[in-house]
């Protein structure tokens, strides 16, 4: 019996007799995530309701998403995959899919349809960037600035304008996003960015633009660094994930403003490791279907300011669970914020990431 039949059978049985069904599924589920506020939002939005429905199940968290790709590869080589469901950013999910470390999914069969009957693949739309990937949230890498130290910038190109906005800036220590912003601010049209970046001259042009501010940049590797640097006054503006800025502004009341111009959308979601035994896989698929349905993704936005990946979830986004503020205006996907966005080309970066990274690091070390 192949898996699809098993899953179909399982699904029908689940409707008729949940108790009988539970016996075919493992009762332990190891979820891998990022820890911190993000994992807490997953815990509250999907794990707790799922446990309430399935009292016999035990969920174990592993906060290893940052090194998930390498660990999953090592586990796979050792023939002992202990993880059941792994949270990964979209580019990592493509890598895992390419390496055969993640299972390909049939999105329409494996995931719940929207309440109005729209199939899952239509509901997620373009966000299904890889066959192995189920997106949960849309986040963006965007800029925060000190409202008390510099004038309000209205364009992302403020990072390259040292005269009008003096002071240090923090940027992520990788070519992704920075190269695109550099070319955009050097006058390349948004639609041509990847075409230009694909040529050696384009890379030089991007690095030359970054060179103009190189001495004023603090490079970060962990998402928490920029909010801290902004709070200390060490930098006057800096890029980071929008959720980090939200908590610095709304939860900690720091004098920081959001600059949404040319924010770079990215996705975070689940992948199912390849080679799980049937009982564990059945449990994973059951959980996955529940945890990525319309209501669950909308619920997650109560706890963190990341946009739900399903189109059908957007109208259901409500207020912050503790602060009571309306969450919609803080979502990167909100129309007021998404006026001018940069759409990240996953396929292009999967091809060119290693090459560009070598050039970027060589440039940094110079």
């Amino acid at each position, binding site marked *: 019996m192949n898996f699809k039949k098993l899953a179909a059978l399982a699904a029908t049985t689940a409707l008729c007799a949940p108790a009988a069904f539970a016996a075919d599924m493992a009762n332990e589920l190891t979820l891998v995530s990022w820890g911190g506020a993000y994992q807490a939002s997953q815990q509250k939005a999907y794990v707790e309701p799922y446990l309430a429905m399935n009292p016999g199940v035990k969920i174990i968290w592993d906060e290893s998403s*940052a*090194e998930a*790709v*390498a660990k999953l*590869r090592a586990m796979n080589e050792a023939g002992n995959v202990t993880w059941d469901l792994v949270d990964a950013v979209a580019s990592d999910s493509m*890598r895992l*899919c*390419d*390496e*055969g470390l993640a299972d*390909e999914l049939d999105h329409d069969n494996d995931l719940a349809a929207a309440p109005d009957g729209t199939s899952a693949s239509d509901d997620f739309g373009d966000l299904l960037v890889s066959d192995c990937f189920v997106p949960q949230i849309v986040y963006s890498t965007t800029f925060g600035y000190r409202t008390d130290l510099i004038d309000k910038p209205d364009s992302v190109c403020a990072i390259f304008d040292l005269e009008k906005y003096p002071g*240090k800036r923090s940027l992520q*220590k990788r070519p992704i996003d920075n190269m695109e912003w550099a070319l955009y601010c050097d006058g390349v049209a948004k639609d041509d960015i990847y075409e230009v970046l694909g040529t050696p001259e384009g*890379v*030089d042009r991007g*690095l030359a633009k970054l060179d103009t501010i190189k001495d004023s940049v*603090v*490079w970060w*590797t962990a998402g928490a660094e920029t909010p801290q640097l902004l709070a*200390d*006054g*060490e930098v006057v503006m800096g890029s980071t994930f929008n959720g980090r800025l939200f908590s610095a502004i709304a939860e900690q009341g720091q004098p920081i403003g959001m600059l949404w111009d040319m924010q770079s959308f990215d996705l975070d979601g689940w992948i199912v490791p390849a080679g799980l035994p049937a009982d564990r896989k059945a449990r994973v698929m059951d959980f996955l279907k529940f945890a990525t349905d319309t209501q669950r993704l909308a619920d997650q936005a109560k706890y963190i300011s990341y946009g739900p990946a399903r189109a059908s979830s957007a109208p259901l986004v409500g207020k912050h669970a503790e602060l009571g503020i309306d969450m919609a205006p803080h979502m990167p996907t909100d129309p007021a914020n998404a006026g001018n966005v940069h759409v990240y080309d996953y*396929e292009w970066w*999967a*091809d*060119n*990431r*290693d*090459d*560009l*990274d*070598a*050039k970027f*690091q*060589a*440039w*940094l*070390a110079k």
Partner: protein
Amino acid sequence: MSDSTSSGPVLAADGTPLKRSLARALRMQKMRALMLIAPLLLFVLLTFILPIADMLFRSVENQIVSETLPKTVVALQDWDADSGEAPGEDVYAALAVDMKAAAEAKLHTRVGSRLNYEKPGISSLFRKAGRKVKKWDVENGGPFKEQFIKIHKGWGDPDVWRTIQTYSPRLTNGYFLNAADMQKGADGAEWRPENEQIYWTLFIRTMIMSLAITCSCIILGYPVAWILANLPARTANLLMILVLLPFWTSLLVRTSAWKVMLQQQGVINETLVWLGLVADDARLVMINNQFGTIVAMTHILLPFMILPMYSVMQTIKPTYLRAAKSLGATNWTAFWRVYFPQSVPGIGAGSILVFILAIGYYITPELVGGTKGVFISNRIAFHISSSLNWGLAAALGTILLVVVLILYWAYDKIVGIDNVKLG
């Protein structure tokens, strides 16, 4: 009978020759000794030596190409890479067969990622082709050349085929070339373009900065160890806790504390500005550069220097110094000619510990090193956990290991490894 006993070998009590009996007893003894250390030996072998050997082997291993594309590799042998033209139909037909098999086993994208390290763009060629070829009839659906080029024009690019051909042997020196800022060009190894050269810089920087860290540890640690060794035991133990205290604090906490101290809006700069020693718009840059890395790492590694020095200095008898002075030596001569030579083994042990630990550090340089203060280990970590180019990481690791062994050998020649003591 009696003749044979007198001229034959000496016999043991049980009649066997004494020599054999002795050898057996010795063998038994050796076996017993081996049995006693067997658990540890096995443990070290299984958990340390084998994984390292396996990891090092990855630096030359390249079976994936010939295993996943066996027919293509054979068909490609006769193709002349310098012809400037894509190979003929036979190669494409072989590729179609290989690709279909690989796509069904979901292996095609792995080869794609492997070759993408050498030529950007190949990973999407394989990803796209695999999807289509899965549906092809590879027996009689030909000709395949046009079909491949229709999927992506990259399949008609001779450079792509050159890369496949260059990386088809089961073993490769490509990772090592890459680790030395070189690449396989049309005629053998050649330097990479200047804007991609980084590893030499990083290797040299790692060595120089590790040396600087070791030296500053010696300079700061020596007086501390001397005081500890010459105080009464009660006070010394109390002070020893102060030396060990940082040991018990998380590495990340200590590193972050240095950020708070050294950054431009940090404690030191604020104090200097308040004292009027530094102008407000000319605050010192002490972090996110080499200085920050050296300060933070010296602090973190200092106990590894102080402890061996301390235990060696404790064994130096104060009577030697007194004897030297009674014979007319000045304080300095007594120290330099009598005390210092005896403390050298402690310095040696501490230096080796600190230097080798420093070479392998990457969290601290990543956090406080900015762009000029990062080490080769940061790149190794990047290739292990992020780019998944484990072959390159293994090559870099192997080079680092060899460099450390050479330095160890040089140290043995210059100072002598017998001259290292932990107490």
